[in-house]
Structure formats: C-alpha cells, structure tokens
C-alpha cells in the first residue's frame, strides 16, 4: 500500500567557523549572522524540518557548533538534522545529545561506508541521512561523481552507484547537492535529482541552487524529489517559508498546511547575539 506522504520543505543552515553563511559552489560567500535568529523565523512559520551543517575547514570550531546546536534545539520545534565532521559514533552521540533527531554524514561514509550501518544499528535508519555532493563527470557511468570533503576531494565513486550502496548500508534518507549548482540560483540539477530519486526507494532531499519558489516545485515534479531544501533564499525574504509553501500548494503539491496558531510562550529563549 502506498501512503501519500506530503512533500517536506526543509530550511538548511550552513555554519562556517561558528557563523551562518551563504555559499556559492561550496565556498562561503557572506555571513548572514545568527543561527538562532534564522531558526526563530523558520519556526514561527511553516518549515517542516531544519538541517544544520558544519562546513568549516577543520575541527577548530566544533565546540562552538555544539553550543549552537544546543541553542537551536531549545527553540527548534521541528525535527532537526545535524551534520558535519561525523567520523564515529561518538560524534553522533554528541549531536543527538545536543538535540539532533537525525544526523547527516558524507566524507567519512565515503571513506568507511560501514559507518552508515553502525549508526543505523544503534539509532535506526530513520536517524541516518547520507549527504551526497555530486559533480558532473563524464567518465562515471551515471555522469556524476560523489565528492567528499566539502566538494574538494573526488571519491572515485559513481554518484548513482553510491546512492544505491548507502541504501543497502542502512541510510534512511539522502540529502543531494550538485556542487556547481550550489548558490548558483539556477535551481536544482534536475537531471541529477531525478537520476538518484528514481534509483532508490528512500526519500531524496534536493538541495542547492534554489532562487525562486518554482524551483521547489520543479524539484518534486521534474526531479521526483521527496523533499526540497534551500538555504540562501530563506535568509533575506520575510515569511519566505510560508510563501514557498503557499506556492507549492497552489501548484498542486501535497504539503503540510500553513495554519498559524498564536501560542503565548513567555519563557521561550529570546535572541541573544554571540
């Protein structure tokens, strides 16, 4: 039996050296300030999930990132996915203790695929998101290669074959980005999204390149993505997630509603800049 699952709209925050940044082709471009302000905005509106990824060069800012994750989970009342620098179960535990409902991993999984199985074994597949950063490579059977280390180290793995592998290894979900499309405002790489979505039977989250609401609709309609994510577009647009949802609804896609309930939360943590 197939259940009509609603398409999720996911807001992603990229944290570089302790600050939320926008990126283009996997390079940070500008600082957009506090993760807490951003999440306060998403939260009051209608985003279905939040993904926060640590994308610094090295581990020097991980303590600060943990503090950010803890702060986010105090004000984020939707499922929270946390990724970045996950190499073993200890880091998964750190993130889940800090409030992550799911973890996203990439580079370490490419190097040691059984890590996926280890995490799924302890936390369940629903907790494991494998992030695949792909880049066009005509030498690969599917035309795309999976790339590790923040888009900098080609893995030699065909992106589609890798997606099929991670499903077998126990991943519950795939977060899919195409490096050249990241921050490039052309929308998702729909060819890639469809290639991977059609190859696996777990949800694929399209990410990277969204510049207008229609790109979300394309991701689902043409890319066959189960869920759609974006970062940059949400930062500067007021009520952006609500508008995105309304656009998707008007386009005929099943999404969670945008009903606003006024709830008095007198003790909710207030915004404190670092």
């Amino acid at each position, binding site marked *: *039996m*197939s*259940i009509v*699952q*609603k398409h*999720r709209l996911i807001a992603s925050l990229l944290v570089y050296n302790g600050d939320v940044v926008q990126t283009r082709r996997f390079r940070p471009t500008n600082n957009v300030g506090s993760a807490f302000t951003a999440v306060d905005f998403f*939260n*009051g509106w*209608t985003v*279905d999930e939040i993904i926060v990824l640590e994308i610094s060069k090295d581990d020097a800012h991980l303590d600060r990132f943990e503090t950010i994750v803890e702060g986010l*989970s*105090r*004000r984020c*009342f*939707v*499922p929270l996915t946390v990724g970045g620098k996950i190499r073993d179960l200890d880091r998964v535990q750190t993130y889940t203790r800090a*409030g992550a*409902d799911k973890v996203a991993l990439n580079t370490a999984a490419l190097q040691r695929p059984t890590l996926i199985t280890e995490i799924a074994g302890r936390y*369940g597949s*629903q907790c494991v998101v494998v992030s695949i950063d792909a880049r066009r490579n005509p030498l690969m059977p599917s035309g795309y290669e999976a790339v590790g280390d923040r888009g900098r180290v080609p893995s030699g793995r065909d992106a589609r074959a890798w997606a099929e592998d991670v499903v077998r290894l126990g991943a*519950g979900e795939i977060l899919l980005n195409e490096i050249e499309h990241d921050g490039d405002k052309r929308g998702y790489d729909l060819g890639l999204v469809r290639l991977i979505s059609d190859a696996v039977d777990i949800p694929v989250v399209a990410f990277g390149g969204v510049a207008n609401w229609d790109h979300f609709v394309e991701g689902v309609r043409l890319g066959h993505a189960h869920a759609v994510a974006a970062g940059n577009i949400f930062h500067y647009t007021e009520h952006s997630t609500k508008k995105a949802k309304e656009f998707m609804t008007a386009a005929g896609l099943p999404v*969670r*509603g945008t*009903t*606003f*309930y006024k*709830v*008095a*939360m*007198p*003790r*909710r*943590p207030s915004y404190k800049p670092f």
Partner: protein
Amino acid sequence: MVNALSCFDVDVSVVESGAKLADAGRIVLPGVGSFDAGMCGLAERGHLEALRNRVLDAGVPYLGICLGMQFLFEGSAEGSLAGLGWLKGRVERFVSGPGHPKVPHVGWNEVDIAPSSSLMAGLESPTDFYFVHSYYAPLAATETVAVGTCDYGVRFCAALERDNIAAVQFHPEKSQLGGMKLFQTFLNPGQ
C-alpha cells in the same frame, strides 16, 4: 521535551523518583526506548505507584507522549511486561513487508481531530503532527477514548482523552505550532 515545555509559564522538573511526583500539578510522561525497558524504568524509580496515586486517585492531569501513551494499555506486542493497564487492550505493531508502508512510521502525518477533544481544541482538523513509532494503539481498543486518528496503512488512535488522562502517539515537541498549541492547552486549559 523539557525545552518545549520550558517555553511556557510553568516550572518544569525531570523527576527521578516517584516520591517527587507528589508536588506536580501536571504530569507529562514522554517515552523513549522500548516498552519493557520503559516499564522497568518506571518500576525502578517508584513511578508506578506514584502515578497511580497522583493520576488515578488525586486526578492530576496526565499527558502521555509516544511510549507514554502506550504504557496506559494492558500490554504491548513489543514486550512481555504488563503496562499500567488504565485502559483496556494491547498495543500492536504495524505490519511490515511488501504491500505495507515502511515501518517505523516516521514523518508528518494528518491527524483527524474529534470536535470533543479538549486537548486539541482550537486546532483545525486535520492537523499535521510529527510521528516516529512502530507500535500503535488500535482503534478497536480505544473506541470510547480516541479523539484523534491517523492513517498509516491502518487507521490508528493518535490521541486519546479520558477524564484527567490524555495521551498522544505523535511528538508535539516536534510538531511546531500545532504541538506548542497542544502543550499550551494542556498547561493552561483556561486560556
């Protein structure tokens, strides 16, 4: 859970022993892990008797969440220990395999809300809530108490109310404004 409840004008404490439940004006029991481990944990901390005293005898409002809902029944397909048994019937497992939706049931799903629900008064029907579970309370066992139902291959009881006892299978603390509204109603029924 504590993070979510702490947004309201209430003092939240995590009680490690049943004796400390005596002071509670409201009791929320979230569940993590498995049925037997959870019931063991409740027994070890002296919560079983304290819950009976406070909730059944003294009428303190109770909100069970996820496993905290399943504990109310006589038992569960997940374990061999007895539940609290305040409600008749047993918790069942979703059928998995070809022709059935994936287990566990993870994600947002619509809950049809009965007009009689006090906990979800003010929420539209249906409202989407966030679920993570493999076991559910069947409607056959909850006919008289179910105030919210959800369809995941089988229609099951997503929310129930009986006197001062309320319980939900979904996670209000992950269900954004709908969930926070539910907490507000539970904590301040007058508002």
